């Protein structure tokens, strides 16, 4: 269970302070799939970095299962938008990196890795380097690398955005089946409303930058869900319209601002800070 208590985050000092998240509070219930949806550059990725513990909020705090987040930990693993597989390690070496780094029992790790390789259909690509895998295979390898550590919370930041339409559809249905099998708290970030409605038990609609919660919609569509059945399901479409009208308004607002999306500014600013 993740709880954000009036979290604010801004980058830069003095005149150049750029508020990215403004008093944002929400709860992601335990063993449920919570989806955060909002315009690009609104600060969703920043919120993920705060929950994962890579950065600290300027104000407010984030609790996971009651205890405050102080730094990265194996209970909260993140899957980024672009692949974060280690290019110089083979698929198998990538997957077993976590347990080996924590010096866990080798036999146990090897068997779990074998199970996950079969489950993700990557057994044939075991010895290949990430650069030699297709987009879909890279995503599945990264999922396996996280799941072997059995995290309480799985965080995914628009993981399927770069994939072509067909692979994206396959990966989405694969992920839904996976999350329905083993109960785990999932936090999924996207700008695609169809993805959100397919996955979400709870849908949190975020405003344009500076990000704050615009609406929380509990999605109680029956499980297991499939993309083409949702297309014809009127309840799903009603939900989609409700979320879409909020999102459209926020997107126009983010767009009316016109200048560089806040996201790009933050990224550039963080890199310059690192360089100083």
């Amino acid at each position, binding site marked *: 269970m993740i709880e954000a208590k009036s979290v604010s985050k801004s980058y830069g000092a003095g005149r150049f302070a750029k508020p990215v998240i403004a008093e944002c509070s929400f709860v992601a219930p335990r063993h449920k799939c919570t989806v955060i949806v909002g315009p690009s550059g609104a600060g969703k990725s920043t919120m993920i970095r705060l929950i994962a513990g890579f950065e600290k909020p300027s104000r407010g705090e984030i609790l996971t299962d009651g205890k405050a987040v102080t730094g990265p930990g194996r209970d909260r693993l993140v899957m980024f938008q672009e692949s974060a597989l280690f290019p110089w390690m083979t698929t198998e070496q990538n997957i077993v990196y976590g347990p080996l780094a924590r010096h866990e029992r080798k036999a146990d790790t090897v068997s779990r890795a074998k199970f996950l390789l079969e489950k993700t259909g990557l057994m044939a690509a075991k010895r290949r380097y990430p650069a030699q895998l297709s987009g879909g295979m890279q995503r599945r390898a990264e999922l396996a690398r996280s799941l072997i550590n059995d995290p309480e919370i799985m965080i995914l930041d*628009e993981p399927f955005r770069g994939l072509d*339409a067909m692979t994206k559809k396959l990966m989405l249905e694969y992920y839904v089946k996976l999350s329905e099998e083993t109960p785990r708290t999932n936090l999924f970030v996207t700008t695609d409303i169809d993805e959100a409605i397919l996955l979400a038990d709870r849908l949190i609609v975020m405003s344009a930058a500076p990000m704050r919660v615009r609406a929380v919609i509990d999605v109680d569509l029956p499980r297991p869900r499939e993309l083409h059945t949702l297309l014809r399901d009127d309840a799903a479409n009603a939900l989609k319209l409700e979320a879409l009208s909020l999102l459209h308004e926020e*997107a126009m607002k983010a*767009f009316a601002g016109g200048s560089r999306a806040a996201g790009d500014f933050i990224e550039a600013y963080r890199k310059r800070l690192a360089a100083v």
Partner: protein
Amino acid sequence: MSILAPSRGALRIDNAVKYYGEGSARTLAVDHCTLDIRPGEICMIVGPSGCGKTTLLNAVAGFHGLDDGSIHLDNKMLCGPGQPQAAVGPDRIVVFQNGALFPWMTNLDNIAFGPVAQKRLRRAEARDKAAQLMRDAGLAGHEFAYPGEISSGLRRRVEIVRALMNDPTVLLLDEPYRALDALTKSVMHEALLETYYRTGITIFFITHDLEEAIFLGHRVVIMTARPCKPKKIIEVDIPHPRDYTILTSKRFRELLAEADAGVHDEALKSFALGEREG
């Protein structure tokens, strides 16, 4: 049909054929493709990735020639027997997938580039007209920014204004909103429709996103997997002007299901062919 029913922009492609590669690796990319696009129509070309849609667009633009068949614009032959490759010209302007605004010119100079290059307008006149067009498109205030300084959504709109500055007969769009996230895309769609309502220009739009095709198009042409050939044409009878609320209307969902059925087995075929996006 379009509100303004202009007289120009009829693009007629009849059994265009195009091969790729040399010798043994010579593969057929476009296979006897015949397509009639009416003046002032938004025609959406949909098909699985790598099926040859862009090859067709490049032939219309004149970036490469055809091995057979011909293309006519308002009954003037662009390319055909005797003249395999069309001449590149400002009557058919391409907006590229990852954008092609000159990063070293300000947005204003980018837009003013066309008429100045064709020696139709002097630099000062072109800049004034460009500023005017930017204001119409709601881009006032970004005249002196460089393309690298504005968001990707805004860059797309500046590029379309740069195309419209040359008063083209046809606008050739090659998956212009592919790199954008879903929400920015919906805002882009409304901006494009707004521009269309003002200019009534014929639009030849390539995409693999069905929702985008049905939301924007008067007609959606579904292409086969490689080599591409029109397989099915869907008339989108949702009236213009359209906005995001139609996305959940019953008619829209029916059309989407119909298009999805058309594309599905083609997508599987091309997926089997090992075609996958970059």
